């Protein structure tokens, strides 16, 4: 059971490459809720997720309930190809002070691959390992950027099960994706929040406009 | 007019020459870049205006 906090984003503007991409984004993510971010390519999903995860600063607006509660996963899985599957998971387990990795191995059917070096996995197997990492962070809010890339349908189902179990334990998830995950979740379309090109939102180059 | 530089003429003159060359080069590069920047800015400002 996680602490029942709400991740709440209000009037958020985010920028990439110095340009505002999204403006006025706001939503609440309550425990047990999953929110699917949608939007065409280049609409700013990645940028929004990175901002919420604290990897970049927002231009404007506030994010509350995010500190030390977020587990972030993006395209790069942070896997070391010269460490085995177990070693990779154990490392993150120790960093996050989590006791065990077995549930994660089981949830993504990684046992048969446990001693394999991560570098020798296929694209989808790597992805599964990257997703398994989320379970050993012990963090309540999962922030995921296209998590199901190169997964086959059975692996997508594993992922959906893992998310459901996480939500059932009071966690929440914020997922950007282009495909249907089979999750029963709310959808948040970012394309409605595209920033005006001449909007003044505190981007660093505005002093020069 | 030119002072007698004695046996060190080469040194003194080359020191002056080298410095002047360096300074002039610096100023030239600076001005050139400045001019290019001005032109580019003017261009962009015009485009932006014509866009609406």
């Amino acid at each position, binding site marked *: 059971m996680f602490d029942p906090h709400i991740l709440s984003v209000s009037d958020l503007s985010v920028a990439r490459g110095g340009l505002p991409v999204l403006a006025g984004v706001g939503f609440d993510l309550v425990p047990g809720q999953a929110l699917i971010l949608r939007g065409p390519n280049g609409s700013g999903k990645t940028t929004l997720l990175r901002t919420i995860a604290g990897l970049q600063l927002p231009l404007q607006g506030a994010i509350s309930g995010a500190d*030390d509660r977020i587990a*972030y996963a993006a395209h790069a*899985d*942070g896997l070391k*190809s*010269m460490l085995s599957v177990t070693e990779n998971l*154990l*490392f993150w387990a120790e*960093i*996050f002070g989590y006791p065990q990795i077995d549930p994660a191995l089981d949830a993504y059917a990684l046992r048969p691959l446990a001693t394999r070096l991560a570098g020798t996995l296929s694209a989808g197997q790597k992805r599964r390992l990257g997703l398994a990492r989320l379970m050993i962070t012990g963090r309540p809010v999962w922030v995921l950027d296209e998590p199901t890339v190169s997964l086959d349908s059975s692996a997508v189902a594993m992922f959906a099960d893992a998310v459901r179990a996480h939500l059932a334990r009071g966690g929440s998830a914020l997922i950007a994706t282009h495909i249907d995950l089979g999750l029963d979740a709310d959808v948040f379309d970012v394309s409605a929040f595209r920033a005006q090109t001449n909007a003044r939102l505190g981007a660093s180059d505005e002093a020069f406009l | 007019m030119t002072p007698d530089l004695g046996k060190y003429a080469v040194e003194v003159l080359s020191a002056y020459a080298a410095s002047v060359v360096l300074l002039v080069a610096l100023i030239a590069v600076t001005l050139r870049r400045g001019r290019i920047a001005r032109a580019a800015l003017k261009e962009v400002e015009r485009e932006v205006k014509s866009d609406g």
Partner: protein
Amino acid sequence: MKALLVRDIKLAFRAGGGFGLGLAFFLIVTVLVPFSVGPQQALLGSIAPGVLWLGALLACLLSLDRLLALDFEDGTLDLLVTSPLPLEGAVSVKALAHWITTGLPLVLAAPVLGVLLNLPPAGFGWLVASLALGTPALSVIGTFGAALTVGIKRGGLLLSLLVLPLYVPTLIFGAEAARRGALGLDPATPLLMLAGITFATVGLMPFASAAVLRMGLR
């Protein structure tokens, strides 16, 4: 913290022997010196402490670019920043792992290479002492450089360019201590200065490195 240290050392061993390679580079540079300056024993002996220090420095330098860049590329750094580990601690641990896998072997190998370069007998002890005292500073300063260049595609050479001037004081005092030792003079002053530099950098640089890393990742 310990997990990070263990992992970094493990990776250094696995990734094609990061452990041995710094050492091998050190060896090869030292071996190439006689080829390039000529084989006169006296000349070699007199430049030996300096060459060994320079070789150690270059060997350290060359392994710097895998210090953070690999973690950046595969996304580990993003995950570390969002992890409960304080970033200052993480960079210190990474510097320590770098020292254990690069600096320490160099210290241990230096006497052997001293023989190759005809280092005067009196110099061996001081050479080792000065390297043992100075190489931690090299690792810590190097981590700062690595943090500065972390987002830059293959910043290897830029990293060298930024770090080498920062290495100057360490090199001067270190090589001077080794040289004085080899000549039978008293190396106490440079050794003390070296110790001062090492302690100051070990204490302060991680803050700069962490700050720079945060800025760079944004």
